[in-house]
């Protein structure tokens, strides 16, 4: 299967390891990955902050870039939710643009959805000998309804011990510009999320969204906690071979 990767601006710029992991993982599973280079950003920050027109322009760019793809994989649940849930509302009701956006939407997948639903695989052959907690991000949990897909993928990873995160369904407090507009509340929420994660005794906290992880990880790092953050793609991409060579 030929898979178009929408890397997202945050991953592209700040978390290229996540992108490399997605490519490695999908190629290992026998698929061809393409990266349409015209891509930039889904417009979520603009949309959520109330800048609808710039968001709509970025949505048009996205649709033009990805329209021909059979499947678009996004290693970010919030960007996938932006595209699927909000793009159709950005064009005028009934307009050709909003129809194009609605057509493309169902072919856009969060990585874990794509693996479980489309490729129908939960054991991706990964090896990751660590204690891990998974934080279900709001967009993955409530907007995309990822349900137990990430857990099924993680449970199939050899060597991985999956621990339960208390208060898992509660927002980490990132919320895009919320993190700076209401910094004190955002920090208080992040602090509680970090505290719960550290309390499990895990070595690694993973999620399907690096923006949330950036917020929780920034809190953990400021507290000089030893708990590391990583995108779930990086866990799923890792194998015995890589552990042997590093």
């Amino acid at each position, binding site marked *: 299967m030929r898979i178009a990767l929408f890397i997202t601006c945050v991953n592209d*710029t700040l978390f*290229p*390891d*996540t*992108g490399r992991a997605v490519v490695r993982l999908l190629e290992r599973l026998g698929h061809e990955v393409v*990266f349409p280079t015209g891509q930039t950003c889904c*417009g979520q920050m603009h949309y959520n902050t109330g800048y609808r027109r*710039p968001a709509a322009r970025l949505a048009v760019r996205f649709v033009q870039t990805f329209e021909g793809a059979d499947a678009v994989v996004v290693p970010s649940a919030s960007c996938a939710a932006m595209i699927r849930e909000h793009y159709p509302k950005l064009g005028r009701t009934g307009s050709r643009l909003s129809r194009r956006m609605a057509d493309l939407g169902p072919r856009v997948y969060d990585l874990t959805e794509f693996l479980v639903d489309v490729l129908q695989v939960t054991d991706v052959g990964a090896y990751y000998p660590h204690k891990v907690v998974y934080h279900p991000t709001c967009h993955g949990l409530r907007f995309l309804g990822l349900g137990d897909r990430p857990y099924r993928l993680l449970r199939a990873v050899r060597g991985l011990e999956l621990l339960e995160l208390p208060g898992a*369904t509660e927002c980490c407090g990132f919320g895009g510009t919320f993190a700076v507009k209401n910094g004190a509340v955002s920090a208080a929420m992040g602090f509680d999320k970090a505290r719960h994660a550290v309390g499990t005794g895990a070595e690694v906290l993973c999620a399907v969204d690096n923006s949330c992880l950036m917020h929780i990880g920034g809190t953990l790092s*400021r507290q000089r906690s030893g708990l590391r953050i990583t995108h779930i793609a990086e866990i799923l991409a890792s194998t015995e071979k890589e552990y042997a060579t590093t």
Partner: protein
Amino acid sequence: MSSATFLGMPPFPEAARSAVEDSRTRHNLHKATHTIRGKRDAVVGELGDDWQRLRAEGEAVKTHTLRHLDHYLEKLEESVRRAGGTVHWAADADEANAIVTRLVKQTGESEVVKVKSMATQEIELNNALEAAGITAYETDLAELIVQLGEDLPSHILVPAIHLGRAQIREIFLDKMAEWGVPAPEGLTDDPRALAEAARVHLRELFLRAKVAVSGANFAVADSGTLVVLESEGNGRMCLTLPETLISVVGIEKIVPTWSDLEVFMQLLPRSSTGERMNPYTSTWTGVTPGDGPQDFHLVLLDNGRTDVLADTVGRQALRCIRCSACLNICPVYERTGGHAYGSVYPGPIGAILTPQLKGMSSEADRALPYASSLCGACYDVCPVAIDIPEVLVHLREQVASTEAPLGEKALMAGAEAVFGSSTALDAAQRAAGVMRGAVPKHLPGLAGKWTDTRDIPDIPEESFRKWWNEREEGR
């Protein structure tokens, strides 16, 4: 005896900053919201898949009613009149307050007992009555606590949720005597003892009161029936014993038919107090000879609701049945409490209702749509499926198109320029890669709000895009 007011409170971010540092309030709120979440989950779970069916039906009934509100208002008016009640219309708070004041004065009484009502909180009826020499006694336990403590409500259902039992005991001991029967000596902070003190304090008042003021949870258009759900029996006292009853009801409280109540009587108690059914519900239709108040007045209140109705996206906020489930689940509310929202309607629903009811001319009202991380938990629990995140974003669009801070506008314009083409993004990423060693741990301006409490991630040497292109070239 003075009444507090939300007027002049700082905007949400500032009020929230001090609120999160108040560890006692944080503790009280955490305990209370987590208790109620657990109870709600259990009783909602009992209904299985039918919960979503009831929720969809609740949404449908309310949406339909709002789309034909003029028809149902006239129908309700006719039904109430036919049953012996008098209907008044109030375009705003001043009109409503004037009507109620006039009606109380006509009875010759100078005191009224009140059933907990959001509408009368919203119009600050107690202040208006006080100015006219009429004392309004709040009889709901939490409202009583707030009134005695000269405090402000911080929750729709439990206005004193920010207070713990020890604080409530202090208020009772200090203030009950000023208003009537004093608290017993040796009052402990056992909730049973506190409830008993409230019973004794209000008992004689209930038995002598001649005029009551209430709101209503629902007003049934086809039968003219008003419905009040409560727990303590103070509602029954006020709705039954006095000679005159004045009910101030928002125009959005209508349901078309009596049978629609089967939906809401399942949705509301389970969402609100987390019970299969609240202890008491009273319904009355106009006047019943020989039973209850013989003089009944319904005051239909607009006070900004028609402005909300005119906004086709924001309109859904009028479906709200004031259950408070969105407050109880909200991680922001849990940490700030209700006062930070500067309105009688706090929490997620307040963040969309207040700016729509009042308009967004003040900085405080413009700040409310941003008082959310858009986590969506409020929408999930809403028994009438109000898409609160959608309305929040919609209101942010209104703010951004007019009064957004310049720094934010510059950030958004800059980001759009960078994301406007992949070459611009590539150039920005390369520049960042060069600068990566020179980024300080604490940044100025808007970014400083991030680095106050969080580290920023290390900027990688090369972007994903650069890596990909090099890989492609190498093939």
